Protein backbone atom coordinates (compact mmCIF):
# COMPACT_ATOMS: atom_id res chain seq x y z
CA UNK A 1 0.00 0.00 0.00
CA UNK A 2 2.82 2.36 0.90
CA UNK A 3 4.30 1.68 -2.49
CA UNK A 4 1.10 2.76 -4.27
CA UNK A 5 0.66 5.84 -2.10
CA UNK A 6 4.19 6.87 -2.97
CA UNK A 7 3.48 6.39 -6.66
CA UNK A 8 0.30 8.44 -6.37
CA UNK A 9 2.08 11.34 -4.64
CA UNK A 10 4.81 11.14 -7.22
CA UNK A 11 2.20 11.42 -9.98
CA UNK A 12 0.64 14.48 -8.38
CA UNK A 13 4.06 16.12 -8.14
CA UNK A 14 4.69 15.43 -11.82
CA UNK A 15 1.31 16.88 -12.76
CA UNK A 16 2.08 20.03 -10.77
CA UNK A 17 5.52 20.35 -12.36
CA UNK A 18 4.14 19.95 -15.88
CA UNK A 19 1.52 22.64 -15.26
CA UNK A 20 4.21 25.05 -14.05
CA UNK A 21 6.42 24.32 -17.04
CA UNK A 22 3.65 24.68 -19.58
CA UNK A 23 2.73 28.05 -18.07
CA UNK A 24 6.33 29.19 -18.21
CA UNK A 25 6.77 28.15 -21.83
CA UNK A 26 3.39 29.54 -22.86
CA UNK A 27 4.31 32.82 -21.16
CA UNK A 28 7.59 32.98 -23.08
CA UNK A 29 6.01 32.22 -26.45
CA UNK A 30 5.43 35.35 -28.49
CA UNK A 31 1.84 36.51 -29.05
CA UNK A 32 -1.52 35.42 -27.67
CA UNK A 33 -4.95 34.96 -29.11
CA UNK A 34 -5.75 38.56 -28.18
CA UNK A 35 -2.65 39.91 -29.97
CA UNK A 36 -3.96 38.36 -33.17
CA UNK A 37 -7.34 39.98 -32.52
CA UNK A 38 -5.71 43.40 -32.55
CA UNK A 39 -4.95 42.91 -36.24
CA UNK A 40 -8.67 42.73 -36.94
CA UNK A 41 -9.85 46.32 -37.74
CA UNK A 42 -13.42 45.48 -36.82
CA UNK A 43 -12.54 45.02 -33.15
CA UNK A 44 -11.86 48.18 -31.23
CA UNK A 45 -8.83 48.43 -28.96
CA UNK A 46 -11.20 49.14 -26.08
CA UNK A 47 -12.97 45.80 -26.54
CA UNK A 48 -9.66 44.04 -26.58
CA UNK A 49 -8.61 45.79 -23.39
CA UNK A 50 -11.82 44.65 -21.71
CA UNK A 51 -11.25 41.08 -22.90
CA UNK A 52 -7.66 41.25 -21.73
CA UNK A 53 -8.79 42.23 -18.25
CA UNK A 54 -11.56 39.64 -18.32
CA UNK A 55 -9.14 36.80 -19.08
CA UNK A 56 -6.60 38.25 -16.67
CA UNK A 57 -4.00 38.65 -19.41
CA UNK A 58 -3.04 42.08 -18.04
CA UNK A 59 -1.73 40.49 -14.86
CA UNK A 60 1.78 39.11 -14.30
CA UNK A 61 2.46 35.40 -14.92
CA UNK A 62 2.37 34.19 -11.28
CA UNK A 63 -1.06 35.76 -10.76
CA UNK A 64 -2.35 34.17 -13.95
CA UNK A 65 -1.04 30.83 -12.79
CA UNK A 66 -2.80 31.10 -9.44
CA UNK A 67 -6.03 32.08 -11.17
CA UNK A 68 -5.66 29.09 -13.43
CA UNK A 69 -5.10 26.79 -10.44
CA UNK A 70 -8.27 28.20 -8.93
CA UNK A 71 -10.18 27.44 -12.10
CA UNK A 72 -8.74 23.91 -12.11
CA UNK A 73 -10.07 23.49 -8.59
CA UNK A 74 -13.51 24.47 -9.94
CA UNK A 75 -13.26 21.93 -12.74
CA UNK A 76 -13.00 24.49 -15.57
CA UNK A 77 -9.26 24.22 -16.37
CA UNK A 78 -9.23 27.80 -17.70
CA UNK A 79 -11.17 29.47 -20.52
CA UNK A 80 -10.73 29.07 -24.24
CA UNK A 81 -10.42 32.40 -26.10
CA UNK A 82 -11.70 30.98 -29.35
CA UNK A 83 -14.73 29.13 -28.00
CA UNK A 84 -15.36 31.41 -25.03
CA UNK A 85 -16.07 28.29 -22.99
CA UNK A 86 -14.41 26.46 -20.10
CA UNK A 87 -11.60 24.22 -21.34
CA UNK A 88 -12.43 21.00 -19.49
CA UNK A 89 -15.79 20.17 -21.13
CA UNK A 90 -14.40 21.25 -24.52
CA UNK A 91 -11.51 18.84 -24.25
CA UNK A 92 -13.54 16.07 -22.77
CA UNK A 93 -16.03 16.11 -25.66
CA UNK A 94 -13.22 15.62 -28.19
CA UNK A 95 -11.09 13.35 -26.02
CA UNK A 96 -14.06 11.01 -25.71
CA UNK A 97 -14.05 10.56 -29.49
CA UNK A 98 -10.33 9.93 -29.46
CA UNK A 99 -10.65 7.35 -26.72
CA UNK A 100 -13.49 5.68 -28.62
CA UNK A 101 -10.90 5.06 -31.30
CA UNK A 102 -7.68 4.44 -29.39
CA UNK A 103 -8.96 2.33 -26.52
CA UNK A 104 -10.42 -0.47 -28.67
CA UNK A 105 -7.49 -0.22 -31.08
CA UNK A 106 -4.95 -0.68 -28.28
CA UNK A 107 -6.99 -3.51 -26.85
CA UNK A 108 -7.21 -5.18 -30.26
CA UNK A 109 -3.46 -4.78 -30.80
CA UNK A 110 -2.78 -6.44 -27.43
CA UNK A 111 -5.23 -9.23 -28.08
CA UNK A 112 -3.38 -10.05 -31.29
CA UNK A 113 0.15 -9.30 -30.04
CA UNK A 114 0.11 -11.55 -26.97
CA UNK A 115 -0.87 -14.85 -28.60
CA UNK A 116 1.15 -14.01 -31.71
CA UNK A 117 4.23 -13.12 -29.65
CA UNK A 118 3.91 -16.26 -27.56
CA UNK A 119 3.46 -18.35 -30.69
CA UNK A 120 6.45 -16.77 -32.46
CA UNK A 121 8.73 -17.14 -29.45
CA UNK A 122 7.71 -20.76 -29.11
CA UNK A 123 8.41 -21.30 -32.82
CA UNK A 124 11.63 -19.31 -32.58
CA UNK A 125 13.60 -19.54 -35.81
CA UNK A 126 11.08 -21.80 -37.51
CA UNK A 127 8.60 -20.85 -40.23
CA UNK A 128 5.79 -19.62 -38.02
CA UNK A 129 8.15 -17.22 -36.30
CA UNK A 130 9.68 -16.03 -39.56
CA UNK A 131 6.30 -15.31 -41.12
CA UNK A 132 5.09 -13.39 -38.05
CA UNK A 133 8.39 -11.51 -37.91
CA UNK A 134 8.37 -10.63 -41.63
CA UNK A 135 4.71 -9.59 -41.52
CA UNK A 136 5.09 -7.24 -38.58
CA UNK A 137 8.37 -5.84 -39.90
CA UNK A 138 6.63 -4.97 -43.15
CA UNK A 139 3.88 -3.12 -41.30
CA UNK A 140 6.53 -1.39 -39.22
CA UNK A 141 8.37 0.09 -42.20
CA UNK A 142 5.22 1.23 -44.01
CA UNK A 143 4.39 4.72 -42.73
CA UNK A 144 1.02 5.03 -40.99
CA UNK A 145 -0.01 7.59 -43.58
CA UNK A 146 0.40 5.15 -46.48
CA UNK A 147 -1.35 2.45 -44.48
CA UNK A 148 -4.29 4.77 -43.79
CA UNK A 149 -4.52 5.91 -47.41
CA UNK A 150 -4.30 2.37 -48.76
CA UNK A 151 -7.11 1.18 -46.50
CA UNK A 152 -9.21 4.22 -47.39
CA UNK A 153 -8.77 3.64 -51.11
CA UNK A 154 -9.74 0.01 -50.63
CA UNK A 155 -12.80 1.09 -48.65
CA UNK A 156 -13.92 3.58 -51.24
CA UNK A 157 -13.49 1.09 -54.08
CA UNK A 158 -15.27 -1.78 -52.39
CA UNK A 159 -17.85 0.53 -50.75
CA UNK A 160 -17.64 -1.57 -47.61
CA UNK A 161 -16.68 1.13 -45.17
CA UNK A 162 -16.99 4.91 -45.11
CA UNK A 163 -13.82 6.77 -46.01
CA UNK A 164 -13.94 9.11 -43.06
CA UNK A 165 -15.91 10.82 -40.31
CA UNK A 166 -17.51 9.44 -37.21
CA UNK A 167 -21.21 9.31 -38.11
CA UNK A 168 -23.50 9.48 -41.11
CA UNK A 169 -25.44 12.72 -41.49
CA UNK A 170 -28.84 11.29 -42.24
CA UNK A 171 -28.90 8.24 -40.03
CA UNK A 172 -30.73 8.91 -36.80
CA UNK A 173 -33.06 6.06 -36.07
CA UNK A 174 -32.38 5.29 -32.44
CA UNK A 175 -29.82 3.83 -30.12
CA UNK A 176 -29.10 0.56 -31.87
CA UNK A 177 -28.84 2.19 -35.26
CA UNK A 178 -26.56 4.88 -33.84
CA UNK A 179 -24.22 2.35 -32.33
CA UNK A 180 -24.22 0.37 -35.53
CA UNK A 181 -23.39 3.54 -37.45
CA UNK A 182 -20.56 4.39 -35.05
CA UNK A 183 -19.05 0.91 -35.31
CA UNK A 184 -19.28 1.09 -39.09
CA UNK A 185 -17.33 4.34 -39.12
CA UNK A 186 -14.94 3.09 -36.47
CA UNK A 187 -13.76 -0.03 -38.27
CA UNK A 188 -11.32 1.50 -40.71
CA UNK A 189 -9.47 3.92 -38.39
CA UNK A 190 -9.45 1.26 -35.70
CA UNK A 191 -7.78 -1.31 -37.95
CA UNK A 192 -5.28 1.24 -39.22
CA UNK A 193 -4.36 2.28 -35.71
CA UNK A 194 -4.21 -1.26 -34.36
CA UNK A 195 -1.99 -2.35 -37.26
CA UNK A 196 0.29 0.62 -36.61
CA UNK A 197 0.90 -0.27 -32.97
CA UNK A 198 0.84 -4.04 -33.33
CA UNK A 199 4.51 -4.55 -34.40
CA UNK A 200 5.91 -2.82 -31.32
CA UNK A 201 3.72 -4.83 -28.97
CA UNK A 202 4.45 -8.03 -30.84
CA UNK A 203 8.21 -7.57 -30.63
CA UNK A 204 8.02 -6.77 -26.98
CA UNK A 205 5.99 -9.86 -26.16
CA UNK A 206 8.18 -12.06 -28.34
CA UNK A 207 11.41 -10.78 -26.78
CA UNK A 208 10.02 -11.15 -23.26
CA UNK A 209 8.85 -14.67 -23.99
CA UNK A 210 12.18 -15.66 -25.58
CA UNK A 211 14.00 -14.54 -22.47
CA UNK A 212 11.52 -16.36 -20.24
CA UNK A 213 11.73 -19.55 -22.28
CA UNK A 214 15.52 -19.60 -21.95
CA UNK A 215 15.46 -19.21 -18.17
CA UNK A 216 16.46 -22.11 -15.93
CA UNK A 217 13.06 -22.11 -14.23
CA UNK A 218 11.49 -22.96 -17.58
CA UNK A 219 14.00 -25.78 -18.08
CA UNK A 220 12.95 -27.04 -14.69
CA UNK A 221 9.29 -26.82 -15.67
CA UNK A 222 9.99 -28.86 -18.81
CA UNK A 223 11.78 -31.46 -16.74
CA UNK A 224 8.59 -31.94 -14.73
CA UNK A 225 7.02 -33.22 -17.93
CA UNK A 226 4.27 -30.57 -17.92
CA UNK A 227 2.19 -30.11 -21.07
CA UNK A 228 3.69 -27.53 -23.48
CA UNK A 229 0.65 -25.23 -23.32
CA UNK A 230 0.89 -25.05 -19.54
CA UNK A 231 4.62 -24.34 -19.72
CA UNK A 232 4.01 -21.60 -22.27
CA UNK A 233 1.00 -19.84 -20.81
CA UNK A 234 1.38 -20.45 -17.11
CA UNK A 235 5.13 -20.58 -16.52
CA UNK A 236 6.65 -18.52 -19.31
CA UNK A 237 4.00 -15.84 -19.62
CA UNK A 238 4.16 -15.21 -15.88
CA UNK A 239 7.91 -14.66 -16.19
CA UNK A 240 7.47 -12.37 -19.18
CA UNK A 241 4.68 -10.40 -17.49
CA UNK A 242 6.89 -7.62 -16.11
CA UNK A 243 8.22 -6.10 -19.34
CA UNK A 244 4.87 -6.60 -21.06
CA UNK A 245 2.96 -4.82 -18.30
CA UNK A 246 5.40 -1.92 -18.38
CA UNK A 247 4.75 -1.46 -22.07
CA UNK A 248 1.03 -1.74 -21.39
CA UNK A 249 1.32 1.31 -19.13
CA UNK A 250 3.16 3.22 -21.83
CA UNK A 251 0.57 2.22 -24.40
CA UNK A 252 -2.14 3.69 -22.16
CA UNK A 253 -0.09 6.85 -22.00
CA UNK A 254 -0.04 7.26 -25.75
CA UNK A 255 -3.79 6.76 -26.13
CA UNK A 256 -4.27 10.45 -26.96
CA UNK A 257 -1.29 11.02 -29.22
CA UNK A 258 -1.07 7.76 -31.16
CA UNK A 259 -4.13 8.55 -33.26
CA UNK A 260 -3.24 12.14 -34.21
CA UNK A 261 -2.34 11.40 -37.80
CA UNK A 262 -5.20 8.99 -38.39
CA UNK A 263 -7.68 11.47 -36.92
CA UNK A 264 -6.60 14.10 -39.39
CA UNK A 265 -6.41 11.80 -42.43
CA UNK A 266 -9.66 9.99 -41.74
CA UNK A 267 -11.42 13.10 -40.41
CA UNK A 268 -12.16 11.58 -37.06
CA UNK A 269 -13.36 14.40 -34.77
CA UNK A 270 -10.91 13.69 -31.97
CA UNK A 271 -8.66 15.78 -29.79
CA UNK A 272 -5.87 15.92 -32.38
CA UNK A 273 -7.57 18.28 -34.80
CA UNK A 274 -8.73 20.59 -32.02
CA UNK A 275 -5.27 20.74 -30.50
CA UNK A 276 -3.76 21.62 -33.87
CA UNK A 277 -6.25 24.49 -34.28
CA UNK A 278 -5.66 25.70 -30.74
CA UNK A 279 -1.91 25.84 -31.24
CA UNK A 280 -2.24 27.77 -34.50
CA UNK A 281 -4.70 30.22 -32.94
CA UNK A 282 -2.55 30.57 -29.80
CA UNK A 283 -5.55 29.59 -27.71
CA UNK A 284 -3.34 29.41 -24.62
CA UNK A 285 -5.54 27.71 -22.04
CA UNK A 286 -6.89 25.17 -24.48
CA UNK A 287 -3.34 24.11 -25.36
CA UNK A 288 -2.32 23.91 -21.71
CA UNK A 289 -5.49 21.97 -20.96
CA UNK A 290 -4.72 19.44 -23.69
CA UNK A 291 -1.14 19.05 -22.44
CA UNK A 292 -2.41 18.53 -18.92
CA UNK A 293 -4.98 16.01 -20.07
CA UNK A 294 -2.43 13.88 -21.92
CA UNK A 295 -0.09 14.08 -18.92
CA UNK A 296 -2.95 12.89 -16.76
CA UNK A 297 -3.52 9.96 -19.07
CA UNK A 298 0.18 9.14 -19.09
CA UNK A 299 0.32 9.11 -15.32
CA UNK A 300 -2.89 7.11 -15.09
CA UNK A 301 -1.47 4.59 -17.57
CA UNK A 302 1.70 4.20 -15.54
CA UNK A 303 -0.30 3.94 -12.35
CA UNK A 304 -2.45 1.18 -13.84
CA UNK A 305 0.69 -0.65 -14.98
CA UNK A 306 2.18 -0.26 -11.51
CA UNK A 307 -1.01 -1.53 -9.95
CA UNK A 308 -0.97 -4.56 -12.24
CA UNK A 309 2.72 -5.21 -11.56
CA UNK A 310 1.95 -4.88 -7.90
CA UNK A 311 -0.78 -7.49 -8.00
CA UNK A 312 1.08 -9.80 -10.39
CA UNK A 313 4.64 -9.69 -9.07
CA UNK A 314 5.12 -10.94 -5.51
CA UNK A 315 8.64 -9.50 -5.51
CA UNK A 316 7.13 -6.01 -5.59
CA UNK A 317 4.11 -6.76 -3.45
CA UNK A 318 6.05 -8.52 -0.71
CA UNK A 319 9.59 -7.50 -0.02
CA UNK A 320 12.18 -10.09 1.03
CA UNK A 321 11.66 -11.39 4.53
CA UNK A 322 13.98 -10.32 7.38
Amino acid sequence: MKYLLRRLLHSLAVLFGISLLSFLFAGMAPGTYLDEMQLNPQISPATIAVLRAQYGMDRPLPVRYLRWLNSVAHGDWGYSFAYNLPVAPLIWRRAKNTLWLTLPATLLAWLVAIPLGVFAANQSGRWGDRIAEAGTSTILVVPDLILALALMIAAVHTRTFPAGGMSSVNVQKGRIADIHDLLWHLTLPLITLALGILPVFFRHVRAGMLEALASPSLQAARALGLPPSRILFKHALRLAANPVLSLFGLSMASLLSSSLLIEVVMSWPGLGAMLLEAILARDLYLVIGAVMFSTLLLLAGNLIADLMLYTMDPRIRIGPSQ
Partner: protein
Amino acid sequence: MSNSEPQPLVSIRRLSKRYVQGSLWSKRFEISALKNVDLEVATGSNLALVGESGSGKSTLAKCLAGFEEPSSGEICFEGRNLLALGAKQRARTRRSIQLIFQDAASSLNPGFTAEDILLEPMVIQEEGAPEERKRRCVEVLEQVGLARLLLRRWPHELSGGQRQRLVIARALIMKPRILILDEALTGLDLSIQAQIVEILRQLRKAHGLTYLYVSHNLGLMGAIAEEIAVMHEGKIVERQSVQQIFRSPQHPATSALLAAIPGGSLAFVSRPERPTI
Protein backbone atom coordinates in the same frame (compact mmCIF):
# COMPACT_ATOMS: atom_id res chain seq x y z
CA MET B 1 25.00 -53.67 -4.77
CA SER B 2 22.71 -56.67 -4.64
CA ASN B 3 23.19 -59.57 -6.99
CA SER B 4 19.46 -59.97 -7.61
CA GLU B 5 19.58 -56.86 -9.79
CA PRO B 6 22.56 -57.15 -12.08
CA GLN B 7 21.15 -54.61 -14.50
CA PRO B 8 22.53 -51.10 -13.90
CA LEU B 9 20.02 -48.29 -13.32
CA VAL B 10 21.64 -46.15 -15.99
CA SER B 11 23.81 -47.38 -18.76
CA ILE B 12 25.27 -44.88 -21.19
CA ARG B 13 26.89 -46.26 -24.31
CA ARG B 14 29.05 -44.49 -26.86
CA LEU B 15 27.31 -41.20 -26.18
CA SER B 16 28.43 -38.22 -28.27
CA LYS B 17 27.25 -34.65 -28.30
CA ARG B 18 28.38 -32.05 -30.81
CA TYR B 19 27.40 -28.39 -30.55
CA VAL B 20 27.35 -26.40 -33.77
CA GLN B 21 28.71 -22.92 -33.26
CA GLY B 22 28.72 -19.87 -35.49
CA SER B 23 26.00 -17.78 -37.04
CA LEU B 24 24.90 -16.88 -40.51
CA TRP B 25 27.91 -14.58 -40.90
CA SER B 26 30.76 -16.50 -39.33
CA LYS B 27 32.10 -19.87 -40.36
CA ARG B 28 30.40 -22.76 -38.64
CA PHE B 29 32.40 -25.12 -36.48
CA GLU B 30 31.58 -27.98 -34.18
CA ILE B 31 32.46 -28.53 -30.56
CA SER B 32 32.59 -32.13 -29.43
CA ALA B 33 31.43 -31.85 -25.85
CA LEU B 34 31.07 -35.62 -25.43
CA LYS B 35 33.14 -38.21 -27.29
CA ASN B 36 31.84 -41.79 -27.14
CA VAL B 37 31.21 -41.74 -23.42
CA ASP B 38 30.43 -45.02 -21.65
CA LEU B 39 29.11 -44.87 -18.12
CA GLU B 40 27.22 -47.27 -15.91
CA VAL B 41 25.46 -46.18 -12.75
CA ALA B 42 24.33 -48.98 -10.45
CA THR B 43 21.11 -48.71 -8.46
CA GLY B 44 21.78 -47.10 -5.10
CA SER B 45 25.27 -45.97 -5.98
CA ASN B 46 26.77 -42.67 -5.03
CA LEU B 47 28.91 -41.54 -7.91
CA ALA B 48 30.62 -38.22 -8.57
CA LEU B 49 31.54 -36.98 -12.02
CA VAL B 50 34.55 -34.73 -11.65
CA GLY B 51 36.53 -32.76 -14.20
CA GLU B 52 37.88 -29.35 -15.03
CA SER B 53 35.58 -26.67 -16.40
CA GLY B 54 34.54 -27.37 -19.98
CA SER B 55 35.27 -31.09 -19.80
CA GLY B 56 31.65 -31.94 -20.66
CA LYS B 57 30.21 -32.86 -17.26
CA SER B 58 27.12 -30.67 -17.51
CA THR B 59 26.52 -31.78 -21.07
CA LEU B 60 26.47 -35.39 -19.94
CA ALA B 61 24.14 -34.50 -17.05
CA LYS B 62 21.78 -32.62 -19.38
CA CYS B 63 21.70 -35.43 -21.92
CA LEU B 64 20.88 -37.91 -19.19
CA ALA B 65 18.12 -35.69 -17.79
CA GLY B 66 16.70 -35.06 -21.25
CA PHE B 67 17.57 -31.38 -21.51
CA GLU B 68 19.81 -31.95 -24.49
CA GLU B 69 19.48 -34.28 -27.43
CA PRO B 70 22.65 -36.36 -27.86
CA SER B 71 24.18 -36.57 -31.35
CA SER B 72 24.61 -40.32 -31.13
CA GLY B 73 24.76 -43.17 -28.66
CA GLU B 74 22.42 -44.78 -26.19
CA ILE B 75 21.09 -43.87 -22.77
CA CYS B 76 19.48 -46.90 -21.18
CA PHE B 77 17.39 -46.40 -18.08
CA GLU B 78 16.36 -49.64 -16.37
CA GLY B 79 17.37 -51.43 -19.53
CA ARG B 80 15.34 -49.33 -21.99
CA ASN B 81 16.98 -46.95 -24.43
CA LEU B 82 15.45 -43.52 -23.70
CA LEU B 83 16.42 -42.15 -27.08
CA ALA B 84 14.38 -44.80 -28.84
CA LEU B 85 11.22 -44.23 -26.76
CA GLY B 86 8.21 -42.28 -27.95
CA ALA B 87 7.60 -38.78 -26.61
CA LYS B 88 4.96 -39.83 -24.02
CA GLN B 89 6.98 -42.72 -22.60
CA ARG B 90 10.07 -40.58 -22.54
CA ALA B 91 8.37 -37.77 -20.64
CA ARG B 92 7.23 -40.31 -18.05
CA THR B 93 10.69 -41.83 -17.67
CA ARG B 94 12.21 -38.39 -17.49
CA ARG B 95 10.47 -37.79 -14.20
CA SER B 96 12.53 -40.59 -12.68
CA ILE B 97 15.72 -38.72 -13.54
CA GLN B 98 15.84 -35.35 -11.80
CA LEU B 99 18.54 -32.75 -12.38
CA ILE B 100 19.32 -30.06 -9.82
CA PHE B 101 21.30 -27.04 -10.94
CA GLN B 102 23.83 -24.95 -9.13
CA ASP B 103 21.68 -21.83 -9.13
CA ALA B 104 18.57 -22.92 -7.29
CA ALA B 105 17.08 -19.44 -7.18
CA SER B 106 16.91 -19.18 -10.96
CA SER B 107 15.29 -22.58 -11.36
CA LEU B 108 12.30 -21.43 -9.28
CA ASN B 109 9.69 -19.33 -11.05
CA PRO B 110 9.30 -16.10 -9.03
CA GLY B 111 5.58 -16.03 -9.82
CA PHE B 112 4.75 -19.23 -7.89
CA THR B 113 4.54 -19.77 -4.13
CA ALA B 114 6.45 -22.66 -2.58
CA GLU B 115 3.19 -24.59 -2.45
CA ASP B 116 2.39 -23.99 -6.13
CA ILE B 117 5.94 -25.01 -7.01
CA LEU B 118 5.47 -28.31 -5.22
CA LEU B 119 1.93 -28.86 -6.53
CA GLU B 120 2.85 -28.18 -10.14
CA PRO B 121 4.52 -31.56 -10.83
CA MET B 122 1.43 -33.34 -9.53
CA VAL B 123 -0.82 -31.61 -12.04
CA ILE B 124 -0.22 -34.18 -14.72
CA GLN B 125 -0.07 -37.18 -12.44
CA GLU B 126 -3.80 -36.64 -11.91
CA GLU B 127 -3.57 -38.77 -8.84
CA GLY B 128 -4.94 -38.06 -5.43
CA ALA B 129 -7.47 -35.57 -4.16
CA PRO B 130 -6.38 -31.98 -3.43
CA GLU B 131 -5.91 -32.80 0.28
CA GLU B 132 -3.82 -35.79 -0.68
CA ARG B 133 -1.58 -33.60 -2.83
CA LYS B 134 -1.27 -31.01 -0.12
CA ARG B 135 -0.30 -33.72 2.33
CA ARG B 136 2.41 -34.84 -0.08
CA CYS B 137 3.74 -31.26 -0.25
CA VAL B 138 4.07 -31.08 3.50
CA GLU B 139 5.68 -34.50 3.53
CA VAL B 140 8.47 -33.65 1.09
CA LEU B 141 8.92 -30.30 2.75
CA GLU B 142 9.57 -32.06 6.04
CA GLN B 143 11.93 -34.47 4.35
CA VAL B 144 14.17 -31.59 3.32
CA GLY B 145 13.85 -29.99 6.74
CA LEU B 146 11.62 -27.04 5.86
CA ALA B 147 8.72 -25.87 8.02
CA ARG B 148 5.23 -26.15 6.52
CA LEU B 149 4.55 -22.48 7.09
CA LEU B 150 7.05 -21.83 4.30
CA LEU B 151 4.46 -23.20 1.85
CA ARG B 152 2.91 -19.78 1.50
CA ARG B 153 6.19 -18.01 0.87
CA TRP B 154 7.44 -16.80 -2.51
CA PRO B 155 10.92 -17.87 -3.64
CA HIS B 156 12.36 -14.40 -3.10
CA GLU B 157 11.36 -14.58 0.55
CA LEU B 158 13.49 -17.69 1.15
CA SER B 159 17.19 -17.86 1.97
CA GLY B 160 19.67 -19.47 -0.44
CA GLY B 161 19.76 -22.70 1.54
CA GLN B 162 15.95 -22.82 1.82
CA ARG B 163 15.62 -22.34 -1.93
CA GLN B 164 18.04 -25.17 -2.65
CA ARG B 165 16.05 -27.41 -0.32
CA LEU B 166 12.81 -26.40 -2.02
CA VAL B 167 14.33 -27.41 -5.36
CA ILE B 168 15.28 -30.78 -3.90
CA ALA B 169 11.75 -31.12 -2.47
CA ARG B 170 10.28 -30.42 -5.91
CA ALA B 171 12.48 -33.14 -7.38
CA LEU B 172 11.37 -35.57 -4.65
CA ILE B 173 7.68 -35.01 -5.47
CA MET B 174 8.32 -36.84 -8.73
CA LYS B 175 9.53 -39.89 -6.79
CA PRO B 176 12.73 -40.08 -8.85
CA ARG B 177 15.10 -43.03 -8.95
CA ILE B 178 18.18 -40.91 -9.54
CA LEU B 179 19.13 -37.36 -8.58
CA ILE B 180 21.75 -35.58 -10.64
CA LEU B 181 23.25 -32.72 -8.65
CA ASP B 182 25.20 -30.46 -11.03
CA GLU B 183 27.35 -28.22 -8.83
CA ALA B 184 24.35 -28.17 -6.50
CA LEU B 185 26.57 -27.47 -3.49
CA THR B 186 28.81 -24.93 -5.19
CA GLY B 187 28.45 -21.38 -4.02
CA LEU B 188 26.68 -22.20 -0.75
CA ASP B 189 28.04 -21.29 2.67
CA LEU B 190 29.96 -24.12 4.26
CA SER B 191 27.41 -24.55 7.06
CA ILE B 192 24.52 -24.65 4.59
CA GLN B 193 26.52 -27.03 2.40
CA ALA B 194 26.90 -29.34 5.40
CA GLN B 195 23.16 -29.13 6.13
CA ILE B 196 22.23 -30.09 2.61
CA VAL B 197 24.77 -32.92 2.49
CA GLU B 198 23.18 -34.26 5.65
CA ILE B 199 19.66 -34.00 4.18
CA LEU B 200 20.80 -35.79 1.02
CA ARG B 201 22.38 -38.52 3.15
CA GLN B 202 19.12 -39.09 5.01
CA LEU B 203 17.04 -39.04 1.85
CA ARG B 204 19.26 -41.65 0.31
CA LYS B 205 18.85 -43.87 3.32
CA ALA B 206 15.07 -43.44 3.37
CA HIS B 207 14.31 -43.80 -0.33
CA GLY B 208 17.19 -45.82 -1.74
CA LEU B 209 17.98 -42.96 -4.12
CA THR B 210 20.86 -43.07 -6.54
CA TYR B 211 23.04 -39.98 -6.68
CA LEU B 212 25.13 -38.66 -9.51
CA TYR B 213 27.11 -35.66 -8.33
CA VAL B 214 28.70 -33.36 -10.87
CA SER B 215 31.46 -31.03 -9.74
CA HIS B 216 34.87 -29.58 -10.53
CA ASN B 217 35.76 -29.86 -6.86
CA LEU B 218 37.44 -33.22 -6.25
CA GLY B 219 38.10 -32.41 -2.60
CA LEU B 220 34.39 -31.93 -1.86
CA MET B 221 33.35 -34.95 -3.92
CA GLY B 222 35.88 -37.08 -2.09
CA ALA B 223 34.04 -36.23 1.10
CA ILE B 224 30.52 -37.06 -0.04
CA ALA B 225 30.71 -39.66 -2.84
CA GLU B 226 31.82 -43.28 -2.83
CA GLU B 227 33.06 -43.48 -6.38
CA ILE B 228 34.67 -40.92 -8.68
CA ALA B 229 34.58 -40.78 -12.48
CA VAL B 230 36.99 -38.27 -13.94
CA MET B 231 36.08 -36.44 -17.14
CA HIS B 232 38.58 -34.83 -19.44
CA GLU B 233 37.95 -33.29 -22.85
CA GLY B 234 34.63 -35.02 -23.36
CA LYS B 235 35.76 -38.47 -22.23
CA ILE B 236 35.68 -40.40 -19.00
CA VAL B 237 39.34 -41.13 -18.41
CA GLU B 238 39.27 -42.86 -15.07
CA ARG B 239 36.81 -44.38 -12.62
CA GLN B 240 37.78 -45.56 -9.15
CA SER B 241 36.63 -45.69 -5.60
CA VAL B 242 37.39 -42.50 -3.68
CA GLN B 243 40.26 -44.20 -1.80
CA GLN B 244 41.84 -45.42 -5.04
CA ILE B 245 41.54 -42.04 -6.74
CA PHE B 246 43.25 -40.26 -3.87
CA ARG B 247 45.87 -42.96 -3.30
CA SER B 248 46.88 -43.76 -6.85
CA PRO B 249 45.48 -41.53 -9.56
CA GLN B 250 45.96 -43.13 -13.00
CA HIS B 251 45.38 -40.22 -15.36
CA PRO B 252 47.24 -36.87 -15.50
CA ALA B 253 43.87 -35.07 -15.42
CA THR B 254 43.12 -36.71 -12.08
CA SER B 255 46.50 -35.68 -10.71
CA ALA B 256 45.83 -32.13 -11.82
CA LEU B 257 42.49 -32.13 -10.01
CA LEU B 258 44.15 -33.53 -6.89
CA ALA B 259 46.79 -30.86 -7.02
CA ALA B 260 44.08 -28.23 -7.14
CA ILE B 261 42.64 -29.25 -3.76
CA PRO B 262 43.60 -26.63 -1.20
CA GLY B 263 45.48 -28.07 1.78
CA GLY B 264 46.63 -31.09 -0.18
CA SER B 265 44.88 -34.36 -0.85
CA LEU B 266 46.83 -36.76 1.32
CA ALA B 267 45.90 -35.16 4.58
CA PHE B 268 42.33 -35.70 3.56
CA VAL B 269 42.56 -39.38 2.67
CA SER B 270 44.50 -40.27 5.78
CA ARG B 271 41.64 -39.11 7.94
CA PRO B 272 40.29 -42.38 9.34
CA GLU B 273 36.64 -41.56 9.84
CA ARG B 274 36.05 -40.17 6.34
CA PRO B 275 32.41 -39.18 6.21
CA THR B 276 30.53 -40.64 3.29
CA ILE B 277 26.86 -40.54 2.54
